């Protein structure tokens, strides 16, 4: 999906801890309040992020309305073999946004 951009190092070595950067285009619309009452606006924001490396879970985030628009996350992965990092962003409307990046040795 083109809404997710990822950045990983071009090459890694066995046992190295690499830094993965990922960003998803998303408005992160928050629930608005008017005099203490919620405005029934269709809020829509990323509330969960999951990342795996060759199928193993390496990162998960519960994100809230208090995370910026176009959410950006940066996290470490220990790579013992070459493979693929896959990241999935979920929003409150049930949509998912997936990105993939390859780690080469």
């Amino acid at each position, binding site marked *: 999906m083109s809404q997710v951009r990822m950045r990983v190092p071009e090459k890694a070595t066995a046992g190295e801890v690499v830094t993965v950067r990922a960003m998803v285009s998303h408005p992160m619309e928050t629930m608005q309040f008017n005099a203490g009452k919620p405005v029934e606006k269709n809020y829509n*924001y990323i509330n969960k992020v999951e990342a795996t490396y060759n199928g193993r879970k390496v990162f998960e*985030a519960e994100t809230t309305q208090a995370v910026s628009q176009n959410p950006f996350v940066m996290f470490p992965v220990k790579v013992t073999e070459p493979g693929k990092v896959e990241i999935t962003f979920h929003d409150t409307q049930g949509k998912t946004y997936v990105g993939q990046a390859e780690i080469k040795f």
Partner: protein
Amino acid sequence: MKAKPMTRRDALRLFGAAGAVLGMGSLRAGDAQAQATGPGMPQPDEKVADTLKRLFGDRPLQPAGDKVKFDAPMIAENGAVVPVRVDVELPMAGDDYVKSIYIISDKNRRPLNTKVSLTPDSGKASVGTNIRLASSTDVRAIAETSKGALYETKREVKVTVGGCGG
């Protein structure tokens, strides 16, 4: 609430978000126990003391010293995009690893910005992201180990333009 056409509520119900919006509307704001289901879903407004109690119970927040390095700007020009970075110098292997990092902003209506979960496959405990701050506030980075210990580093971030859209 006044009678309204049901369409929006039905639409929200389809996405399972109705519990959050309807529940929020009918409950008093002080009812901190009522929470929408699911990670990251809108919570009622909460004072930070209640957030900490809800997340950690009575477990003490130990000052982290050098163990939790928390990088955040002293002055954030734009409260809507405040870059923060947490690096934790604690083991990340076997049964003793940093399993969660929490970022909490005391003066936000709902102090928890994000909760990050890691595994020993992470290699080290760190995370970077951009958060929204409603106003100048203390921001906390709290690392939780798999054994239940909590380490906290706090920073004051001044915000010139608030980031929660009114």
